[in-house]
């Protein structure tokens, strides 16, 4: 497929926003049960979720560049029964709204207690909002990934690994950003976020490598023989019906040499996984803010390359019909 930068930015930016929100809420729940020190001020959560919201807004803005008619975007909520894209269109704003409320509750401090769990666990509004946000956040990961994973003839995408990768890669970048953010706003959370960022990044490396191995072993189901229905071992295209380009020759092929594709693969393995792991390791031992920021920036750049490769690697069966100009 031809990688569209609008979609690359959409998926990576909302991934960071989602991961950051998950990190914040995990931190809040952990401090509730006294695993982590409690943040007396709501500023850390308010600032963090505002940052997550910024990433989500940037992602949403990027997505509009993908549309031919952005002014009709509201229509795309209509077919949620059948279309994962439509579901994403519903879940993304709902999640953004929840993150906004979560940030507002922490910022204003208006956080009424709703119930007491067991003997001594107070359940306040921010926790309820966070739980709703977490459900929406996970649903958004599933929707985003299923847009690609549900297309069965794009065999590179049609796998549960796609969903796992979107979840882990988004969370990894979000936790790395949470670590970088907490260096400045909540230093006692840094180790928690940094360690988890490393764990999730490593898990993401394993699942992304698994999907690379899987894709390398794929055997295309469609061949030129099934495409035109002629049973002969030797079929060659002599003309595609036009001499210039068309939507079919532009949209479904990245148009880059195989060498570039291969180098981008190693580039993103380094940038999204290996370098951030090293930088996070260095950062955790020195607790220097610059290390965490560098880890996040490297990982985000690596994820941009990863997403580019994700699209470029998918081989659409329609390309079988466009093998020779004339």
């Amino acid at each position, binding site marked *: *497929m031809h990688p569209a930068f609008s979609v690359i930015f959409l998926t990576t930016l909302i991934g960071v926003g989602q991961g950051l929100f998950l990190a914040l809420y995990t931190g809040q729940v952990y401090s509730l049960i006294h695993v982590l020190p409690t943040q007396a001020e709501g500023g850390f959560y308010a600032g963090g979720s505002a940052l997550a919201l910024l990433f989500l807004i940037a992602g949403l803005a990027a997505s509009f560049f*993908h*549309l*031919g*008619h*952005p002014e*009709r*975007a509201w*229509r*795309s*909520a*209509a*077919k949620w029964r*059948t*279309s*994962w*894209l*439509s579901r994403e*269109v519903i879940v993304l704003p709902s999640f953004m709204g929840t993150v906004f409320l979560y940030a507002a509750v922490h910022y204003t401090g208006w956080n009424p207690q709703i119930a007491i769990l067991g003997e001594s666990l107070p359940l306040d509004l921010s926790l309820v909002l966070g739980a709703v946000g977490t459900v929406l956040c996970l649903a958004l990961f599933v929707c985003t990934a299923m*847009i690609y994973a*549900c*297309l*069965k*003839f*794009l065999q590179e995408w049609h796998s549960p690994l796609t969903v796992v990768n979107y979840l882990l890669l988004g969370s990894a970048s979000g936790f790395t950003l949470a670590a970088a953010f907490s260096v400045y706003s909540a230093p006692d959370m840094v180790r928690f976020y940094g360690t988890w960022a490393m764990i999730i990044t490593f898990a993401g490396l394993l699942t992304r490598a698994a999907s690379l191995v899987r894709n390398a072993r794929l055997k295309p*189901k*469609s061949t*030129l023989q*099934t*495409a*035109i*229905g*002629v049973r*002969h071992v*030797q*079929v*060659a*295209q*002599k*003309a*595609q*019906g*036009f*001499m*210039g*380009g*068309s*939507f*079919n020759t532009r*949209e*479904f092929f990245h148009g880059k040499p195989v060498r570039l594709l291969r180098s981008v693969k190693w580039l993103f393995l380094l940038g999204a996984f290996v370098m951030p792991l090293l930088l996070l390791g260095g950062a955790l031992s020195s607790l220097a803010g610059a290390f965490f920021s560098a880890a996040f920036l490297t990982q985000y750049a690596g994820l941009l390359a990863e997403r580019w490769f994700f699209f470029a690697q998918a081989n*659409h*069966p*329609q*390309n079988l*019909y*466009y093998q020779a100009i004339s």
Partner: protein
Amino acid sequence: MTQLALVIDLNVCVGCHACVTSCKEWNTSGAAGAMSDDRPYGADPTGTFFNRVQTYEVGCFPKTETVHFPKSCLHCEEPPCVPVCPTGASYKRKEDGIVLVDYDKCIGCKYCSWACPYGVREIDEHQKVMKKCTLCVDRIYDLSLPEAERRPACVMACPTSARLFGDVHDPDSAVSEAIRESGGYQLMPEWGTKPSNHYLPRRKTQIRIHTDELIRADNPLKKERQLPKPDQNEPSLDDVTSW
């Protein structure tokens, strides 16, 4: 249930592109607006088409065969492009099974084109909406046209009648008969899309003549018997040859 479709006879198609041009001519003049063309006479022309004719070579020289292969929307019975559309702009008509795009609802996200394994949907770069073959839905029901012309423009244009149009769900229709009798098949059956358009394979055209078909055994009027040979000495019409 009706399922209108095309049946394309690869044995007859000569690859003249008449269906391509007449499709473009009819559909660019329709109510939906022009199908855009950019730099039509320039170095790198591009444009929106509903129909293309491609050419394939089967076999190894000198035992080769050239197959001209017209490709347009197959109006699948399980169209993978329809459920993925977020707005419902892409839909399959219940009454005749034609897969259509509502150009007023389409947001131009291109997701349906990703979901079509055949690559028959093309975005209009100027109107920014997805376009595809409509089976000339604005023509086949037009009562102001003579009945013989209520057929898709490509079918009307085909000089060799390689394109048949009809209801593939009606077992008595000409298209169903052609599929049945001539081994009609579907493209990429492995994806379960159940294309409605079928293709008739290349086949060897043979004719077998028996002598009793040339001279009727039962011939009471002796219409086809050998004429009596005239005598050598009888005068002929031109005095040179005998008749």
